[in-house]
């Protein structure tokens, strides 16, 4: 029973960060119909942001996140404005290929500048885990979990309550109708892409103390990310959150009860099954 609770806890903790990455991807897809293959590389940039913040300025990742999130937002809007905007009318496959190019470009520039060395972030308070009720919880992961919930809840409120959030949801439901109602779809797209990048960056900063950093880590993250958003239904924020937590649980329980070696495979098999039999997502909320 203890191993079970332990793996549920670590599954939910990791899952909350997966959820954050997934939400960024799914919001962008909802508004622009872009499957952003470079999303994982934006997470990677966030991870390196956390690393260099600590290495150069002795800034704790949970502090430097305040710097990286606005920067990633700005970067995202610039990417949209100068790189993506003209491509989007070309159709889904064109943008898919284009963001694949962007992904390779970002990852290899990072490889060139920062080398392929594996790096880790060592925090003093990460040495011994907390032990509430006898369950080991790594401190950085717990902090990241708290912040991830805070950020995701904030985003949810933003989408639900503000005018900008309503405009984003409207565009995601029907861009033409939204435009007719006076929504500036171009501006909404720019803000949404900035938002998606900021979420990716934030998740990267929060993940950095718990993972190895290397420039091509985005490749693995983006693959997980697809599993998450497809599980939850592409375009659905609630779906991405549940998908993220579900994948976290599947991985940690799978590692214990099936096999450590095949834990990642379970996620992909689940992904294929959902794609084939429930393309609108497990919870039936997304658009297929």
């Amino acid at each position: 029973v203890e191993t079970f609770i332990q793996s549920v806890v670590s599954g939910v903790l990791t899952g909350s960060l997966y959820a954050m990455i997934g939400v960024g991807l799914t919001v962008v897809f909802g508004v622009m119909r872009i499957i952003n293959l470079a999303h994982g590389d934006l997470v990677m940039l966030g991870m390196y942001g956390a690393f260099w913040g600590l290495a150069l300025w002795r800034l704790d990742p949970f502090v430097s996140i305040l710097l990286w999130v606005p920067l990633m937002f700005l970067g995202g809007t610039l990417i949209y404005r100068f790189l993506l905007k003209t491509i989007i009318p070309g159709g889904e496959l064109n943008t898919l290929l284009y963001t694949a190019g962007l992904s390779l470009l970002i990852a290899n520039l990072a490889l060139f500048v920062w080398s392929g060395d594996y790096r880790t972030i060592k925090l003093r308070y990460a040495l011994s885990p907390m032990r509430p009720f006898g369950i080991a919880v790594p401190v950085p992961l717990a902090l990241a979990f708290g912040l991830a919930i805070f950020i995701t809840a904030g985003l949810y409120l933003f989408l639900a309550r503000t005018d900008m959030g309503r405009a984003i949801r409207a565009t995601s439901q029907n861009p033409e109708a939204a435009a007719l109602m006076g929504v500036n779809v171009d501006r909404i797209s720019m803000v949404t892409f900035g938002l998606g990048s900021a979420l990716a960056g934030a998740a990267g900063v929060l993940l950095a103390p718990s993972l190895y950093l290397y420039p091509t880590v985005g490749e693995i993250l983006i693959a997980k990310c697809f599993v998450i958003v497809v599980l939850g239904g592409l375009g659905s924020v609630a779906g991405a959150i549940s998908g993220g937590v579900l994948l976290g649980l599947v991985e940690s329980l799978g590692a214990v009860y099936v096999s450590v070696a095949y834990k990642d495979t379970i996620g992909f098999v689940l992904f294929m099954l959902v794609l084939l039999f429930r393309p609108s997502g497990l919870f039936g909320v997304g658009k297929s």
Partner: protein
Amino acid sequence: VRRLAPLAAVLLVLALPWLTASQFTLHLAITVLLWTVLGVAWNLLGGYGGQVSFGHATFFGVGAYTTLILYLKLGLAPWYGMAVGGVVGALVSLPIGLVCFRLRGPYFSLATLAVAEILRLVALNWEGLTNGPVGLLITALPPVRIASRPINWESKAPFYYMVAVLAVAAMLAAYGLSRSRLGAYLLAVREDEDTAEAVGIDTVRAKVVTLALSAFLAAVAGGFYGLYFRYVDPDAVFPIALSVEMVFIAVVGGLATVAGPAVGAVFLVTISELFRERFLVGHLIFYGLFMMLAIRYLPEGIWGGVRRLLTRHAPS
């Protein structure tokens, strides 16, 4: 002139080992030709059929592993192993195609990517067959005599001829496909799948057959890779990057053209290998950069653009 140009290109390719003594140049040429085969293979389905696979590393890896496993465990010479590997690759593609072709557009792409990752994880963990992350290593190749002269496996020339023949064969296959009934079906599927179905084309069959052909070529290329480098491991033959590079070579060179992938391979592989020679890492920067430029400014690819210029000026 138009009929002689391909012939002249083939002769030039075959004469290259006499023109240069540099091992690096030959290695570069072998790499270019290997990627030509892969680009052409991907282009059959992706270019003509419009089905963007992000998982062709699946077939490359299956071919590479089949070739090496047959040689190391059963002693089957790797050149026969390459052919068997191709057939195994085509067989593996059948269930994958039947499943993935139920999806369209970007969803198909994501599904193929997942398939390649599943295969990579299987190769990593099925240690009894694949030796896991350690990989498989060929220490010596069996001796072969052609016209009573032994082939020197330490030189690069025999590998060069092997891959050159493969590249020419792959391009002939692409040429044949583009002029065949199947090729016409594929264009119809690419332009409008529902209409293609409505006029009575068995679209699933057209796609599955093309995927099998494409997988065969990619798997044979994988077998050649295993033979040339004498080593395979899961991260060398099943990575996402490998699948993506095939796509980029075909798109940058020119989708749905016979020569496009060759042009793309010459261009991208040469630039990136020279960069790798100098800086060691980050050689895929150019793949990303030229992919973005091509989608933005030259969607018909380099060869497509050149051909447009040529036909504009030619008095026809």
